[in-house]
């Protein structure tokens, strides 16, 4: 990153750097001002963005359709509970420290992806999409039935994470007179994870693996001929994407403070696909934008349902806010592919006036890939 900045010259870069700094400042300052609802909504959006980064690597960059993303989110969320739980609630728990549990949960999600790799490596496109549907159903069955592990229908409580002596729970911590509860503290954790996930995904896509993945997506046979081990790559990307989902699952669990099996159903997987299409397939920034859009939209509509035209408060007839948001994002998926191939990310690229400003959309033709 720093080489890129240094290389591209001071004069052009400065405004962009200040822009980023201002955005970062706002994000850092938000917990001091926003109330719990908004911070929670923001955290949901961050988790969604993390998950979207993962499926974007798989579906967007490698062209492998997955409908099983929700399963890996569940593995992450429940995995964390399993490793961190101390067994006092009568459910299986290993009582590991929170940070270790989080790392192991992500690894577990990756492992689950690996177990599925005999299928993930051999199938492609729609076949894989439907095959991964099986994961959702298997996942739901296990979540509801393996009671000792998952708590069954009502899920299980999520032990709070503690990191460097700081516990991410609702014990109040006064920072500059502002009481910091779980969401305020988690906000910073979420930001850090999202930033890390973002940079890593960008690194992957800009380097050799990214080119190989795009080659597989664009022409599988040609990619094979050029010496790319197609099946191995597909399986590896599947594992990586599962790990992203696992991380998103851990973050979600921490925000929810309880894992609920109902949540990890097919609708969630479809939402993730909608996110990356709306954001822009194959674009790292687009995945984040799409994740934020899809997860914030229903919450905004619900909250402001009284003030919006056409949308009516529940119980008064007309279109309920929940329905309105489904219309909107269904239409967004169709419209984006129709009128804005490349999604929100493309929109962002068009705007800046300076032509030398680097595009946030990494594509394989971009010279910035050489910075690695």
């Amino acid at each position, binding site marked *: 990153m720093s080489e890129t900045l240094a290389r591209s010259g001071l004069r052009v870069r400065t405004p962009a750097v200040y822009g980023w700094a201002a955005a970062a400042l706002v994000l850092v300052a938000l917990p001091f001002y926003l109330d719990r609802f908004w911070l929670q909504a923001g955290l949901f959006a961050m988790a969604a963005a993390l998950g979207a980064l993962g499926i974007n690597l798989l579906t967007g960059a490698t062209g492998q359709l997955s409908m099983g993303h929700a399963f890996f989110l569940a593995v992450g969320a429940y995995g964390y509970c399993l490793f961190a739980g101390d067994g006092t609630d009568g459910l299986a728990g290993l009582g590991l420290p929170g940070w270790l549990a989080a790392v192991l949960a992500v690894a577990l999600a990756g492992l689950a992806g690996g177990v599925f790799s005999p*299928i993930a490596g051999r199938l492609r*496109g*729609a076949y894989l999409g439907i095959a991964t549907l*099986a994961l959702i159903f*298997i996942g739901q*069955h296990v979540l509801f*039935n393996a009671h000792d592990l998952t708590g069954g229908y009502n899920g299980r409580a999520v032990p709070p994470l503690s990191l460097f002596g700081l516990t991410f729970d609702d014990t109040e911590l006064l920072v500059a007179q502002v009481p910091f509860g779980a969401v305020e503290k988690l906000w910073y954790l979420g930001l850090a994870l999202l930033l890390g996930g973002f940079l890593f995904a960008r690194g992957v896509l800009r380097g050799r693996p990214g080119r190989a993945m795009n080659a597989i997506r664009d022409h599988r046979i040609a990619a094979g001929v050029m010496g790319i081990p197609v099946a191995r790559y597909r399986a590896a990307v599947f594992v990586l994407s599962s790990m992203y989902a696992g991380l998103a699952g851990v973050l979600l669990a921490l925000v929810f403070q309880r894992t609920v099996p109902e949540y990890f159903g097919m609708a969630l997987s479809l939402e993730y696909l909608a996110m990356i299409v709306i954001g822009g397939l194959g674009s790292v920034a687009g995945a984040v934008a799409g994740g934020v859009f899809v997860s914030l939209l229903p919450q905004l509509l619900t909250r402001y349902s009284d003030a919006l035209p056409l949308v009516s408060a529940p119980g008064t007839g007309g279109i309920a806010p929940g329905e309105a948001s489904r*219309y909107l994002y269904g*239409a*967004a998926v169709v419209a984006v592919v129709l009128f804005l191939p490349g999604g929100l990310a493309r929109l962002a690229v068009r705007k800046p006036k300076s032509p030398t400003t680097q595009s946030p959309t990494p594509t394989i033709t971009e010279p910035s890939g050489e910075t690695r």
Partner: protein
Amino acid sequence: MSTFAEFLINGVSLGSIYALIALGFVVIFRATEVVNFAHASLLLAGGYVTAVLHDEIGFWPALLAGIAGAAVVGAAVEFFVMRRHRGADHSVLAIVTIGVDILLATELTRRIGTDILALGDPWGDAVLTVGPVTIAQTRIAALLVAGLLITAFLLAFRYTSWGVAMRAAAENQETAALMGIRLGRVSLGAWAVAGALAAVAALFLTVFPTPGLERATSLAALKAFPAAILGGLDSTTGALVGGLLVGITESLATGYQSDLAFLGRGIGDLAPYLVMVAVLLIRPAGLFGTKELARV
């Protein structure tokens, strides 16, 4: 033994409904290589039209209207959405159908609301008893209709010019176009046919023994996904076999769930997917799917 026979017949008749839905997938996939995730909504649309109209115009006209309605919705999806991005990546097109599905399903569930709509079919809750085995007449009708339709399609694929055009389009779109086949018409036709088949399936999914059409009916269409895949997405025979396999597996796994209790109860819904995964491990293109040969 008689219970086993009952489970089996139930499974076969359920499977034949799944086969109808799966056949719709296959028709669209063959013509356009797109997996249609909006199929569940087409089904709901067909059922809804039938349910709304049957009181006024009688069952048979309403059923025809439902079939026509679903065909029109299917064709409209093709014409207004899919046609606009022909040539885009097939995974992207599949995701577009998810968007279409969200739109259609939201609209239909909003209209259906909290009602349970009867379809006014002539069979009612009549059953046929042969020796110790009882089976609902609707299920026998489903079996006959599905068998008839699927046979008709197998023949149509082979002998009509439409079938030939569709097979040619599936084989190689460019060559087909060069030979004078109008790809637009082929894919429009495929979507309309898939819609019509879904409407027929909707009828049999919502009559006795199920209480009627309601918002969750479309979920049943999900079971046709594993059916289509394990048969092979591009094979009509596959759709039939896949549908039957899924129906029988589901029926048996549900019926004998007490003997399968170690897997967790309620395994019936899961069983078709487990069969699908097992089949895919051995044959990645499904039982009857064309193995893709890559010539370099």
